[in-house]
């Protein structure tokens, strides 16, 4: 009973982590940006989705896709108002651009957190599950919503894989992560590729945020933790590698779940962090990293 419970629970949380982490690593792989406002983007999707569902009275079914769109908008604002101006700035020397972008997104993340806390307070919010009720899976009670989350995450990951591997735009995205200069020589416009990457990121982070709100609940206090979590998973899996992130998300998700169930819920985040330290020592490029 307990092993099955751990298996199912771990699967759901890992899928959610995977969605967020894949978006994070996509942005890094394609445009070299470590977006430290990642938690903030998820938060906006979750909070605005909740506000639209309850305060604006639109109900969960309409508010959920709207929440995702809000996440997308947040991603665009991050790109156009924070990342791109720094990248295009003539005042910053090229070697220092990455640091400035990093700091910029960090500050932007903090601004989002404080701004949202001011507007909505730091109380956790939850969105109603899209499918209420529980199912019994081989004697283990699982909310339908949890099953749905795992399914949705994998459908999205599957669609992403299809997009990257089967469509021209997707292949261009992949190429940009390997060799941006080569891509421009072939006549592709990098700026459109970046736009595509950020759009995808917005959708992924938005979906992750909204689903998290209905699964566990989100509060502005979680913002830093969400970013840290995505960051550790992505480093573990190898910066820039989507399949690496996927693997790492499941490793971290299961490590956390097993710890919470078998050792103590309090110690939940610990093993993943210890693993991260170990990996950085022993194999800094992560599981499948290229750089």
């Amino acid at each position: 009973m307990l092993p099955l419970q751990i298996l199912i629970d771990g699967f759901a949380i890992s899928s959610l982590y995977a969605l967020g982490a894949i978006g994070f690593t996509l942005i890094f792989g394609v445009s070299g940006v470590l977006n430290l406002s990642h938690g903030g983007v998820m938060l906006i999707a979750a909070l605005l989705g909740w506000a639209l569902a309850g305060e604006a009275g639109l109900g969960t079914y309409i508010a959920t896709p709207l929440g995702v769109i809000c996440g997308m908008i947040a991603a665009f604002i991050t790109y156009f108002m924070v990342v791109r101006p720094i990248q295009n700035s003539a005042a910053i020397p090229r070697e220092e651009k990455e640091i400035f972008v990093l700091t910029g997104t960090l500050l932007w993340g903090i601004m989002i957190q404080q701004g949202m806390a001011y507007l909505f307070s730091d109380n956790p919010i939850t969105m109603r599950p899209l499918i209420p009720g529980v199912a019994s899976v081989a004697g283990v009670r699982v909310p339908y919503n949890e099953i749905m989350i795992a399914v949705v995450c994998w459908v999205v990951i599957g669609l992403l894989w299809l997009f990257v591997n089967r469509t021209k735009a997707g292949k261009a995205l992949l190429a940009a992560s390997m060799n941006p200069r080569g891509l421009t020589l072939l006549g592709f416009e990098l700026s459109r590729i970046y736009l595509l990457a950020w759009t995808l990121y917005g959708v992924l982070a938005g979906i992750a945020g909204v689903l998290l709100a209905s699964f566990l609940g989100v509060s502005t206090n979680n913002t830093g933790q969400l970013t840290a979590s995505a960051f550790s998973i992505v480093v573990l899996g190898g910066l820039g590698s989507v399949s690496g992130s996927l693997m790492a998300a499941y490793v971290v998700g299961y490590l956390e779940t097993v710890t919470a169930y078998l050792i103590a819920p309090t110690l939940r985040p610990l093993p993943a962090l210890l693993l991260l330290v170990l990996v950085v020592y022993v194999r800094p490029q992560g599981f499948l990293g290229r750089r």
Partner: protein
Amino acid sequence: MSKGKSRRGMSTVIATGTVMAGLGLSATAHAAGEPIKIGVISEESAVAGASISKAAQLAAEEINAKGGVDGRQIQIIAYDDHSSASDGVRAFQRAASQDKVVAIIGSYISEVALAMEPWSARLKMPFITPGAASNEISKRVHDDYANYKYTFHGWMTSAFIAQSICDFSHDVLVGEFKMKTTVVMSEDAAWTKPLDERYLECLPKAGLKVLDHIRFNPDTSDFTPIFNQIEAKHPDTITTGISHVGVQPTVQWHDQQVPIPMSGQSSQATTTSFWKDTNGATEGVITASAAAPGVAMTPKTVPFVESYQKHFAGVSPAYDGFTSYDLVYILADAIHRNQGSTDPDKMVDALEKTDYVGTIGRWQFYGKNDQFTHALKYGEGYITGINLQWQNGKQVAIWPKSVANGKVKFPAFVKVQAAAN
């Protein structure tokens, strides 16, 4: 020459006259209308903390409308401590040194109140907490009365909160539902240490064997493993001690359809906005509180709740709203009994003699030689709090019998034996 001199002379006279008139005016203003400043430090963005300053403002407005305290208006100066002990201390120092308040009502979080308490001693500033629960607050007053006498505990200590929940469990859960076992589930915080100690002591005496005792990190967001661990023991009920968290464990309890009822203390569930915050998941949750809408603990309870709801968008006060409101009246009363003096030592004397019927019962503070010096007197005839259950969007009082206005009903997914009638 003489003209210039006389003009200068005239202007000097006029100037002096104006100054003297001004002094004279301000002297009378001082006597007649200088406001009494009361500092209120609270957690504005927390579910439970938001009630504190609002209720204090309401009390001040009412008192001022009736002429104030012997002609002097009460002015509430509110500070947000952001649930942080260091912010609370800074606010305390500022209130005392810069804004020169005569007393401070502060915080519902024990960690914050305990951090501010030594400053009450150092700055000789009367300080009352309307919502923190730790026994430590009154213990310090007992152990070092000379320095700490300026602190009062304006809510039930954790020990008494636990006792009232044990009394409720005995009367209703054991008495009516024939329950036999429980698991204690509390957040790991300053206020729950004495709470859990008393729980472990009085629950068995009330008829509930304690099968397990879980203390979780207040930053926990996934309660599934905890509920799983509890379910594995098959208790008849869960006795909670939560305040920092509330929305997430309640929503997850509901979504996962954990078949065990929850009762005990859930501070966030004491405010009516909790129904909306949890999308109704709080249906069936039982919590101890100061009072509930529609329940007349005293003749003042219902009018206060109605006034609060009218002023603040239909939301009813959390438990610390009731205490905060009563405390402003108590402070005003103490100042009045002192003939307007706000000298700290005189305030302490007057506060110790408090015998005031407020919104939650009859307020008296324990004395120097009692175990919980300056804490609220607990017991029948004084203050016991109530236990309420959320039913269909409303808080229904279910204990004590004298104020109960409904029967206990659990959601369909909760497995209980039917109540014996």
